[in-house]
């Protein structure tokens, strides 16, 4: 497992340097699938494994997510095979003081807690927030940086959108699985805002500037960094909440945590941390005050200005709390899948008909479309539709998701229909022609209906696949079942109940469909024709 992560991490760094956009975004898919499958199976069948003992004594295995980028952890723009960022330097400091060699393991931000619990790494350092839930379930270090949750709005809206209360009915974006997201969920009930969850901290700001959302709530570190490269938005001076970055370790690693706390205290005392943060231009007056409290052993609240969920919920409480949102997300999944499949069927039939009956030029064009769509990843197609052409056509998230899935599946459907059309026995067609039916009538009255019967089983298969592939559209901020499950799992720190509920809901959607298809097949059962 260790070797797998190491190699994967290396491969990704290289790929990022070649085509950072794709790697950056497809990472979500990798992480989701890996977390869903490996995490769930491991959680159900295995007891937590302490791999620490099996790790080489000289290695200090730490994890982060370069998607967070600078100033936390990012690939060095000059040497993409190297990582830079203040969390990288803190990890190196810790390793040096522990007389060990730092070894970075790339783990997606929302899965760091679970990976630490599994024993993949010893510590997570990636702008990880101190929360009451983490304090209850894990072994966080002392806070080493204080940040403020700040609201960013378009420059022209600076006067009218000063607080969350001003944003009633407006879409407000943030990074999923963060305190900011929890604040937005709370504000949804209090002020009627509409939270939008992103998987990265880049697109919330680009979507803000082009008007897809009306505000972004994120750490001042992230907001200020983005303000240096993106124009058109302003950061409101008032803080919504105050939080802290910590390193997190598994609860069973309390001894190592204590050692790390000592190293961090010494670094606060001798100015090493200040030097690191100054280098990354994030040092401010909040930090000396924080360090003074920490060094004086005064208690530091995880979050102030917002009452975060106090402790981990019991399984039953968590289920009751998240079930409505899972059901709501299931509705999005089923509606999106049905509409996308309807679009795919209509387009697929047109493409197949064109390929069977069309002129050579039409056939060549349609073949090109099918090969283009089948030969490129659906994630790339979704990104192009939503972000790539945003300057030309600003599709809404649901519209882009529907179009992306529909256009992609149309290519696959068309191949099924083409095969089915060609499989209709010639005798049936000749019988229709000899009766004087035109070719159009032959197609619509005889060949098409017979082909539909032949295509039914693979179509059902595709619809069930589409139902699951619809989870990919969460990268376009569409909140469907898998995304909601991921947030559920991140918030409660376990995949067991969320995974089982998610699986049950997917089955509840796909099984009736499969049953219906089987009945139709029986009804349409053909004798040899």
């Amino acid at each position, binding site marked *: 497992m260790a070797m797998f992560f190491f190699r994967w991490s290396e491969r990704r760094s290289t790929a990022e340097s070649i085509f950072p956009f794709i790697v950056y975004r497809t990472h979500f898919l990798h992480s989701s699938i890996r977390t869903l499958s490996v995490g769930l199976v491991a959680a159900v069948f295995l007891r937590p494994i302490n791999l620490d003992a099996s790790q080489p004594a000289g290695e200090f295995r730490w994890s982060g997510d370069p998607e967070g980028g600078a100033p936390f952890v990012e690939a060095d723009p000059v040497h993409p095979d190297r990582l830079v960022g203040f969390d990288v330097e803190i990890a190196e400091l810790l390793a040096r003081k522990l007389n060990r060699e730092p070894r970075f393991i790339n783990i997606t931000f929302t899965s760091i807690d679970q990976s630490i619990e599994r024993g993949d790494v010893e510590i997570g350092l990636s702008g990880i927030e101190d929360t009451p839930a983490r304090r209850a379930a894990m072994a966080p270090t002392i806070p080493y940086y204080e940040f403020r949750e700040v609201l960013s709005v378009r420059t022209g809206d600076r006067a009218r959108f000063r607080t969350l209360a001003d944003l009633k009915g407006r879409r407000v974006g943030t990074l999923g699985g963060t305190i900011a997201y929890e604040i937005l969920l709370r504000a949804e009930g209090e002020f009627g805002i509409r939270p939008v969850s992103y998987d990265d901290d880049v697109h919330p700001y680009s979507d803000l500037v082009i008007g897809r959302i009306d505000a972004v709530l994120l750490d001042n570190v992230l907001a200020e960094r983005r303000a240096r490269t993106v124009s058109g938005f302003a950061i409101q001076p008032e803080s919504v909440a105050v939080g802290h970055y910590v390193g997190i370790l598994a609860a069973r690693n309390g001894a190592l945590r204590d050692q790390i706390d000592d190293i961090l205290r010494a670094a606060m005392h001798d100015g090493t941390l200040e030097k690191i943060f100054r280098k990354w231009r994030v040092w401010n007056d909040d930090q000396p005050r924080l360090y003074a409290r920490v060094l004086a052993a005064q208690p530091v609240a995880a979050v102030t200005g917002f009452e975060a969920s106090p402790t981990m919920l019991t399984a039953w409480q968590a289920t009751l709390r998240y079930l409505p949102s899972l059901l709501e997300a299931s509705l999005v999944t089923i509606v999106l899948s049905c509409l996308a499949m309807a679009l795919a069927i209509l387009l697929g039939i047109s493409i197949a008909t064109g390929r069977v009956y069309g002129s050579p030029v039409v056939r060549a064009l349609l073949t090109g479309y099918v090969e283009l769509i089948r030969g490129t990843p659906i994630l790339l197609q979704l990104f192009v539709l939503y972000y790539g052409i945003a300057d030309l056509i600003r599709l809404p998230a649901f519209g882009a998701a529907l179009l992306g899935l529909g256009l992609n599946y149309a290519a696959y459907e068309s191949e099924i229909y083409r095969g089915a059309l060609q499989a209709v026995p010639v*005798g049936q067609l000749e019988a229709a*022609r000899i*009766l*004087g*039916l035109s070719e159009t009538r032959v197609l619509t009255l005889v060949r098409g209906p017979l082909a539909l019967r032949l295509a039914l089983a693979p179509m059902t298969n595709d619809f069930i696949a589409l139902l699951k592939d619809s989870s990919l559209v969460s990268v376009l901020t569409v909140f469907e079942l898998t995304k909601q499950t991921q947030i559920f799992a991140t918030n409660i720190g376990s995949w067991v109940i969320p995974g089982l509920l998610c699986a049950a809901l997917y089955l509840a959607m796909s099984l009736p469909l499969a049953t219906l298809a089987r009945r139709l097949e029986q009804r349409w059962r053909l004798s040899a*024709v």
Partner: protein
Amino acid sequence: MNNCMLRLREVTLLRSGRPVLAGISFDVQRGELVALMGPSGVGKTTVLRVIAGLETFDSGTVHVEDIALNGANGHSPAMLRDLRAKVGMVFQFHHLFEHLSVLKNVWLAPVYARGIPQREAEDRARVLLAALGVEHRAHAFPRELSGGEAQRVAIARALAVDPPLLLMDEPTASLDANRRGELRDLLCTLVREGRTLIVASHDEEFARGCASRVLRIQEGFVFEETGTT
């Protein structure tokens, strides 16, 4: 052509360089029932398919009344449209539309090819099915029919568009002796009504019992037998 319904002249058809039809010529007059005979695989079905426009041929001409098919020029869509108003065909394996009921198999073409109102076409279909003794199977699907029933439904479907020339390929293939007798009577009735029939069969007894003339195919040529009824 006066009373001539069908005229074939020097029709040749090659498959992989081998002549299936080696220059066949024959005429069929209006109201005739001609049996096309010969052992299996000799080319009887091919002759019917050439006449029906389902198969192109290499040289020669086929005239169906005033419609001329030329082997050298191929068949234009307009020519085929005109041809199919005059020629009907009952296939050896029936080729009933498997997804449609018996009744709809019969009224489909009158409605969608001839523009007859559906109610009228349905009534006509029921009359045809009754005349052929399969009205009680009107709502069955082809897979539920016996061979004899399927045969009669296929005939009803072909007659529903009222073609003056009806081609039948091995009509007795799936019938027992009793049913063969009934079919012979039916064909005689159709001829009496003024229709022209060409029946391809290797069933000597049946063919000789109903045909006014027998044509025999042998090695790609057609020979006329004498002394038939």
